[in-house]
């Protein structure tokens, strides 16, 4: 079982696919849940305070808008924890979104830079493309180690016969 980061970071469909394959999904909802459950903070709706965009300075400089840094204070630690990643490009907001194009760009960049096995697929427009996308994701997830993260160095995550989606081990 490995920890898999996803983009969009709050996609329920991706989270479900990953959990079905026995891996741990790193979703935005879990990060938000931790904040919301903190009894010491009273800043509804998500319990983010002035301190969170300041924590986001780790990922983006001070001239970057506070909304980007606030979002990155939640997403950044998830990316740092990731042992694998799945990126779905051009997804509509119903599939999952965090609302800010600049945060999207930065999150994708950090995921690519992370140097872990990463699957990049385009959001499907037809039934066939949907089936194809789910198959690719499942194949990718199957290729990930079940028990420990050492095996991640192996080239076991390449999807055979697939030229469209991008499976990389960046770094």
């Amino acid at each position, binding site marked *: 079982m490995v920890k898999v980061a996803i983009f969009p970071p709050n996609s329920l469909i991706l989270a479900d696919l990953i959990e079905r394959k026995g891996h741990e999904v790193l979703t935005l909802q879990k990060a938000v849940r931790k904040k919301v459950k903190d009894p010491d903070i*009273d*800043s*509804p*709706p*998500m319990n*983010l*305070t*002035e*301190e*969170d*965009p*300041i924590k986001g300075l780790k990922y983006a400089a001070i*001239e*970057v*808008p*506070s*909304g*980007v*840094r*606030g*979002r990155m204070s939640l997403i950044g630690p998830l990316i740092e924890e990731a042992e694998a990643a799945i990126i779905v490009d051009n997804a509509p*907001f*119903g599939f999952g*979104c965090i*609302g*800010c*194009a*600049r945060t999207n760009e930065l999150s994708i960049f950090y995921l690519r830079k992370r140097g872990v096995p990463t699957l990049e697929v385009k959001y499907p427009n037809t039934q066939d493309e949907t089936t194809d996308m789910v198959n690719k994701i499942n194949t990718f997830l199957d290729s990930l180690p079940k028990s420990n993260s050492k095996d991640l160095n192996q080239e076991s995550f390449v999807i055979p016969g697939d030229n469209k989606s991008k499976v990389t081990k960046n770094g």
Partner: protein
Amino acid sequence: MVKIALISCGTEYSGIQKEIEKAATTFGSEIVIPEIDLDYIEEAYAKFGFPAQSSSLKLMIARTMSIIEGKSKADAVFIATCFRCAEGALVRNEVRRFIQKNSRIPVVTYSFTERTKADELFIRMEALTTSVARRSILAREKQEGLTLGVDSGSTTTKVVLMENNKVIGTGWTSTKDIIESVSKASEEAFEGTGYSLDDVDGIGTTGYGRLTIGKNMKAELVQEELSVNAKGAVYLAGHQKGDATVLDIGGMDNKVITVNDGIPDNFTMGGICAGASGRFLDMTARRLDVDITELGPLAMKGDYKKAMLNSYCIVFGIQDLVTTLAAGGSKEDVAAAACHSVSEQVYEQQLQEIDIREPLIQVGGTSLITGLVKAVSETLGGIDVKVPEYSQHIGAVGSALLVSGMGKRQENR
């Protein structure tokens, strides 16, 4: 309760949602978020036509559209996007224009950071609530009867006596003890008019000391300076319909207010450095050994390019001017450089944050410094800058105008 719709790209991610709600409830308003269906977002976004990349900006557009199309109800709108986000700033302004073009709903815009606190938003929320709950006051375009306007500012206190749409007396003094300062300025305003405080129909107060003075004088209107100055400026400039921008470079802080049909819809208040204030011009006048009233005409004769002014700091700025004088530079060039420096700093620190709409109406004591008015016009690419009569008494005139019709003191007697 006044319902203020929050249209933003995600104030909750900057940790300021609570501050916005606190500011609204302080003035008896409630923040509401327009609820819309997912399908409606694409529909509204396509109708609006702005190709935004961020989905929260698409959501902002859809929420705006839902208010205009009557799918969501709101008495006023507060539009907020992140400071320094270009796409956010573009959508914020276009959404604001769209609401103003298609409805009479008052709008205030704001660009926030994680440091934004409720008290920074108070004046905006008060103005927004006023424009809904007290819209009839802001609709007043003509002063009637005998009214007194008091502007108890941080540096100076101004009092104006108005009768039947005319200013008949003015008073001006530096603010020390605020109640004594108002008494002194009031005496000046009544002088030669044949009237006394007992004759007025109503009293309106504004400025930093408005609450204390309002209570002390039992004023009929106690109002923040945003609404009052904006109203006073368009009234004096004879521009009560359409768009305008009001600029007040004060002794200690500066205000830039955009106005639509006499109602303020956005403003910034600064500044960060005293070098961008009237205080810098005051110090320059002293160094040149001229009265502040002579600084403007002197600057009109000078060329700012001939005087060295490398620093925006009030201390080092004055030092630069002294160096220019020591090197044989003329007083005229130094005066022009000082005016140009203040104008440039106000532009860089404040005017850039705002969508400037012509005409620009310059008010406050510094609007009497002709060299500064010229410098503001030049900095803004040669736009027409209007300086109405009594511009230095703007808050007091606005208060006297707005309280007109509210005061029934003579009838009650």
